[in-house]
């Protein structure tokens, strides 16, 4: 059973990083910087629990806040460019963060053992969960509390004026600007919320893997952060969740019985999914159909 709980942990954290890219994508911005915010969160939370002896909750809060601060600081200059320029700027930023941690040493002796980040050798023994007797199920439930909160927050945004504003900017910047929306404020606020969610996800990641190193936060992770909302569709937060389940649950773990074919199919199925459902799993017609199916109020969104 622990295996399923563990898998649910992974899906939960990947959903978080997917959601962080989702809210930025709503404003029409493609950001590859999410892995950078994730890395910041991971190192901050890890250092706080291991080196400063903090409890997990304040440490995660700190990583979310720091993720938000970094994202906000990056958002101002970076969001001056858009489209593909932004993709590459954010990619460069994410790589910059990775390279920072690649060069980052801060070790403190604790109980005769040196702990803390050590450049390319990484940061080991972030064992808050096992040391405090948390079972795999406890950790999973803990993670899913945050996933649920983040999803609820974004879901609520979608139903509020703020969500409409985000989507308005995403659909047509010029039109949005001409009705008096402050583009910079909207985009930077989305980036900041995304940074907080990514930082939180990173903080959790550091604790369930117990060891982090710069190489885990590379372009591949940044691309996957984007892949979840794109594969899932921008119509609903549930799309991101579905896509994280599809990638981590199905492509990675579910196809294991295929042996060597699993890795080949991984890329191929992503290509196929985008060809079959270019607007993602949960696109507008599907969402509408689902709403009818469950007898919800159509047109509420």
């Amino acid at each position: 059973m622990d295996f399923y709980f563990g898998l649910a942990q992974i899906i939960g954290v990947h959903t978080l990083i997917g959601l962080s890219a989702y809210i930025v994508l709503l404003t029409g911005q493609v950001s590859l910087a999410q892995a950078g915010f994730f890395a910041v969160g991971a190192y901050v939370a890890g250092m706080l629990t291991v080196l400063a002896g903090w409890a997990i909750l304040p440490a995660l809060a700190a990583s979310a806040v720091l993720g938000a601060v970094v994202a906000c600081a990056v958002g101002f200059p970076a969001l001056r460019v858009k489209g593909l320029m932004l993709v590459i700027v954010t990619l460069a930023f994410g790589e910059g963060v990775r390279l920072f941690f690649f060069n980052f040493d801060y070790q403190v002796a604790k109980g005769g053992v040196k702990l803390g980040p050590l450049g390319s050798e990484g940061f080991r023994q972030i064992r808050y969960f096992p040391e405090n007797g948390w079972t795999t199920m406890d950790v999973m439930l803990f993670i899913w509390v945050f996933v649920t909160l983040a999803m609820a927050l974004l879901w609520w945004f979608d139903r509020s004026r703020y969500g409409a504003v985000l989507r308005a900017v995403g659909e047509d910047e010029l039109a949005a600007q001409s009705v008096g929306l402050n583009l910079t404020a909207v985009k930077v606020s989305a980036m900041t919320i995304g940074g907080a969610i990514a930082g939180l996800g990173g903080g959790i990641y550091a604790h369930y893997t117990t060891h982090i190193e710069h190489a885990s936060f590379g372009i591949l992770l940044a691309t996957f952060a984007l892949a979840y909302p794109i594969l899932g569709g921008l119509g609903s937060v549930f799309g991101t969740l579905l896509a994280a389940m599809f990638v981590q649950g199905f492509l990675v773990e579910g196809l294991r019985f295929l042996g060597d074919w699993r890795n080949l199919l991984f890329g191929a199925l992503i290509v196929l999914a985008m060809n079959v459902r270019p607007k993602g799993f949960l696109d507008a017609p599907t969402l509408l159909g689902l709403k009818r199916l469950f007898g919800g109020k159509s047109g509420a969104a």
Partner: protein
Amino acid sequence: MLDFFQSLSDGVLFGSTYALIGIGFTLVFGVMHKLNLSYAAASVGGAYCGLLVLQVFAGAPPVVVFFCAFLAGGLLGWLVYLTCFHFIPISNPLATLMATVGMLLLIDEIIVHLTAGMPVGYPAMFDDVMLRMGEFTVRGDLLMVFAVSMLCMGGLLALLYKTRLGLATRAVSQQTVAALLCGIRVGQVNAMTFVITGLLGGIAGAMIGASVGTLSPLLTTPLTTKGLIVTVIGGLGSVPGAIIAGLLVGGFENVLQQYRGVTERDLYVMLLLFVFLVFRPGGLFAPKGGRD
């Protein structure tokens, strides 16, 4: 001082491989306003395909290997077009972006499966030539790579500005709808763009293989990053810009590596990119405007 010029010349010459990759990114962007993230992987894939010749004719000269890489690259370019662009609506840039990521992973993994992930030696020309001027040296094989990339750029510019296909390509890149109204088959032009960039990519992959001496799937991610940076610094859509930016980035990173060490090298490349974005957001050769 000698150190400085030596690093600069080594870097600039090596930068021609970045330039070749940059041209591919910039051309697809210029024509379709889309990003093809699988380009570097397909280029390396083309270079691997060139090696198949050696399986059939063990003693084939390097030129034959390069030529096969060139052809295979074109074929791969067309396959990428078919799988990632043809069936996905043009209004959906995110889907094509993600599809090319899938393609990148697929190509990498196919290479890994066929070679067990091991590095493979690649034939080179003039690799035993070393031009010497006192202490200062220039690698013969890199000069060849440099010459090839100049030739590629010349050929490409001739193709774009002297042929009907080039005219159609430029028309599509400037005003797709108008081109459509003039009777240009936009789909065909798009496919041709991919074949042409693919051919270029095959050459680029082969040149990279030749200048490094070994091929490995490890090459694809750094090449993608560097290629994208080169594209932005050169100005999205500008072919000469990509060439110059490629050489610039190559020289810049090698000089910084000399003075600041390898661990900080790439950080400065990212900084260079930011400097460009602040002071010259359109890149070296900003396009004169158009769509987007």
